[in-house]
């Protein structure tokens, strides 16, 4: 399995965001020149739902512009699964329009949060191992 190293601080921030938004799903963007120096954008889930998310389009537009101006990349898109496992749902896969970004999912369904990363390309899901740096 391919492995990516992500700063522990970034992983903790994603988990904290997921917990703060519980029981609703939260979403956000991991950006940077590379994962080892990545930073987060916490975004608004306009659906306020525990079973789905739709990133605020206006915020997304501004953040993507910011990423471009900083000459960075949208390395990953994250969202939480408050009540289900850390694996992409059928809808997650159908709406995965950014094959160049990884999809990070945090599950809060168990006693401890579980964070996993996936590449989703034309329906094909490949798990990428996450190594905290």
């Amino acid at each position, binding site marked *: 399995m391919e492995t990516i190293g992500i700063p522990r601080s970034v992983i903790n921030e994603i988990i904290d965001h997921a917990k703060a938004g519980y029981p609703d799903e939260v979403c956000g963007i991991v950006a940077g020149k590379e994962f080892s120096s990545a930073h987060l954008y916490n975004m608004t889930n306009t659906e306020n739902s525990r079973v789905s998310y739709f990133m605020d389009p206006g915020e997304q537009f501004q953040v993507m512009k910011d990423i471009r101006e900083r000459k960075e990349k949208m390395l990953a898109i994250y969202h939480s699964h408050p009540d289900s496992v850390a694996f992409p749902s059928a809808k997650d896969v159908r*709406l995965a329009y*950014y094959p160049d970004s990884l999809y990070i999912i945090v599950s809060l369904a168990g006693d401890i949060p579980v964070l996993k990363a996936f590449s989703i390309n034309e329906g094909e899901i490949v798990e990428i191992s996450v190594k905290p740096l």
Partner: protein
Amino acid sequence: MPVKVRIPTPLQRLTGGKEEVEAKTGTVIEIVNDLDKQYPGIAERISENNKIRRFVNMYVNEEDIRFLQAEATVVKDGDELSIVPAIAGGISQ
């Protein structure tokens, strides 16, 4: 001066890797259909029956076309049209 159209990464394989392309002025949907002549297949990814797909956001300069005249929004000389696929998902269908 033509309209500048910003192509998102997932659609750049249809534009030969180009991040920005040029189009003639017109309404949003006219531009989408015109782009399809240069880059076959792109209109189908963005629209269906001349309506922009729900999971595609489009901006004229800084304005979401949903808050303008949607597909009928006129894009003028020098304007920038951005195509931004939505980021969404969930368990519910």
